[in-house]
């Protein structure tokens, strides 16, 4: 019995750093600390209740959509239709006769149903038809965008104020956006302890081994897509609650943001490695960077450039850290 083995250790709660290194979350957290610091420096009232809850309300959609992407990436696939899907869900919500479908709850239920449908189409194409996810979801993304344009050629429509009010309010003293994020992350935490969640990781890590072990590959991948799209629905509802109208181009930027957040969060695009918490960190980094650029009063012509540089710097940082780990 060597020292390395011994009786099974129950995972020590204090062994955070090794776990962080293993999950690849370290650099993401460090970046989060840096941008938070900058934010605090530029925005002295960063910790005030209003500012915090405002920030959370703004970041919530990004976070949810990035976590959705993370779930799919963990299963060794990718979804480039998330952004267009957000737009489509938003347009559906805005074009519904709000009162006739059961008020805000009805609208939200329909949004979730639409999302599940979209996720099922992507999941079936990728898992069952065996199409490469990068291109297949790019194609479905075009279709979602086309459908959004069909429903709503111009930005417009109305989403009931009730949804907006509820989103901006609190429940049991907790801001609703924070609550949504908490529910989503708890949902993942539960799934990750369930057989199905473990199987998503196994399939992402080595599909052939998973298949040989009798794990239903297709069903597992489909599940990853469905879970992700429920998160997308939450994200779409959150952003619709802020805009209170429909826009067929609303979600466009989320697709690439979600991929960037996944990378910053230390999730391997090769699948199986990392956790959705990384995507949450990545999404916060992206959101705070935007804040910093805004509060630093950078001229608009510089903003794109600075944002690009920050992402490139983040990538370089990730790579250096990754090489050190290797």
């Amino acid at each position, binding site marked *: 019995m*060597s020292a390395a083995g011994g009786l099974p250790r129950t995972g020590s709660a204090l062994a955070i750093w090794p776990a962080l290194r293993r999950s690849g979350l370290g650099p993401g957290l460090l970046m989060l600390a840096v941008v938070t610091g900058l934010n605090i420096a530029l925005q002295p009232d960063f910790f005030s209740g209003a500012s915090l809850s405002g920030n959370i309300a703004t970041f919530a959609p990004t976070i949810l959509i990035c976590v959705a992407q993370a779930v799919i990436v963990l299963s060794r696939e990718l979804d480039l239709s998330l952004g267009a899907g957000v737009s489509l869900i938003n347009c559906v919500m805005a074009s519904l006769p709000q009162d006739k479908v059961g008020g805000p709850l009805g609208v939200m239920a329909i949004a979730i149903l639409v999302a599940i449908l979209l996720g099922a189409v992507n999941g079936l194409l990728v898992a069952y038809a065996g199409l490469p996810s990068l291109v297949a979801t790019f194609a479905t993304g075009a279709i979602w965008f086309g459908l959004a344009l069909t429903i709503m050629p111009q930005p417009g429509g109305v989403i009931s104020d009730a949804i907006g009010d509820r989103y901006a309010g609190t429940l049991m003293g907790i801001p609703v956006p924070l609550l949504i994020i908490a529910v989503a992350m708890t949902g993942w935490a539960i799934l990750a302890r369930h*057989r199905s969640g473990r199987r998503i990781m196994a399939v992402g890590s080595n599909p052939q*081994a998973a298949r*040989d*072990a*009798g794990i239903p590959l297709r069903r597992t991948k489909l599940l990853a897509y469905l879970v992700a799209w429920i998160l997308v629905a939450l994200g779409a509802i959150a952003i619709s609650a802020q805009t209170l109208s429909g826009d067929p181009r609303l979600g466009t930027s989320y697709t690439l943001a979600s991929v960037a957040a996944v990378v910053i969060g230390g999730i391997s695009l090769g699948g199986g490695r990392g956790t959705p918490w990384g995507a949450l960190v990545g999404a916060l980094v992206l959101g705070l960077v935007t804040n910093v650029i805004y509060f630093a009063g950078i001229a608009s012509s510089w903003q794109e450039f600075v944002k690009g540089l920050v992402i490139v710097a983040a990538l370089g940082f990730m790579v250096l850290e990754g090489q050190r780990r290797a």
Partner: protein
Amino acid sequence: MTDHLPLPPGRVTARRISKSFGGVPALAGVDLEPRPGRVLGLLGANGSGKSTLCRIIAGEMAPDGGELLLDGEAVRFATPKDGVRHGIVIAHQHPSLAPDLPVWENLFLGMERCGLGGFVSRAGSRRAAWHMLQAVGLDIDIDQPVERLSAAEQQLVEIARALSREPRLLILDEPTAALSAALVERLFAHVRALAASGTAIIFISHRLQEVEALCDDLVVLRNGHRVGSWELDGSLDEARVLDLLTGDSDVASRARDRKPQAAREVVLTLEGLAAGTALRGVDLDLHSGEILGLAGLQGQGQEQLLDAVAGFRRKDSGRIVHRGRALSPRRPRDMIRRGICLVPNDRHRQGLFMNETVGENLAAVSVAMQPQPWRLRRRALRDFVQRAIPRLLIKTRGPAQPVATLSGGNQQKVVIGKWLDGSVDVLLLSDPTKGVDLRARREIYDTIADLVAGGSAALVYASDIHELLHHCDRILVMFEGRIVEALSGSAMTEQRVIAASFGRVA
């Protein structure tokens, strides 16, 4: 593992199984009846259909014809899981694990121990995992991702997983390829105990000594046909087996004619070569006309040594001197320019372009190394390929055949053949006959011998000691990243090599 009740007696029988791939028959109506409580040895050259047969029995592949009988009743397996459900479990030759998941989760992959509502019971799984690994002699941190384990450890995890599924038929597909002798012994003890409890076991190996030591029955396959089967009573008629395997009984008996190492010039000198943790300072001289063998247990730095000399792994310290010139290669290309060529360990991942044809693969080095990138010397390449195929005795329909459809031995010949267009001065071979049948093995060493006869030299690492004893002029034994013994002439004996492999130098 030890505390389960054996399943009720059940017999799995394969009857007249046939399977062909793209019109090429891999199995032509093969019967196999592994008996409960006995170990059935399955022998056959590469491409004889052993693995295909086992995959069909385990439900990983559907047969074209024939049937599987379970206690006399025909069954059909749609997925591997159906096989497992009927107690048929296979441990693959190449571990089939999820690299990012912890060891304990891999042990229950697809068969998670779950509590209420399908939630994985962590504590119970981890405790069971620890016991399973102890049983096969593996003492490791079960929380680390499997990718951190060595090849041997991964193999043991694969085996432990198979053992834990309480099989009534256990298929071990070359389980010992990556294991040291001590671990093999431990595994065998375990397999015998399992057989004694009534399990039927199919054991595949290329190592005849292991089959002799473990098996009760023997079936020999050749080209998808069953060519022989008999009960073993503790000893194996090696000549008969070799005869059946190859139709050529003196295949193994032609030892290399060793010439005295008189004033041969030194081609390659290594001084204190170190790279990473695996290679800790190696000195050696390689002479012209020589086949120098690297022996030792698996994972003692032999592969890393060859990789470092080939420029595939950066050296940390030490000198590589080739024909009087010290070299610090940055990439294999630097060494290939000087005629130092590597036949890598993993031919599928490192040696071949699996989607390409035999001809394209043979021409790969010539295309890469020719001076003008804008030209393609089609005629010269075609001539070279036409010469290389007969020279290496590659069994192929022609240069246009996809390399993926060749047998393992012929694929390996292609990997060696791609070097023959240029001038090879030092040929480095990393386990060149892994998974290669006996005849191809001999032909590969004949090619190496031809090559060194022309004044170049070869440095060969092989996991099979007999192979090295047979074909090399000298043998260096590596242990923990260093050379611990140099043997030549009459000192080259199995005993000396094995002793040195365990760090015991006479």
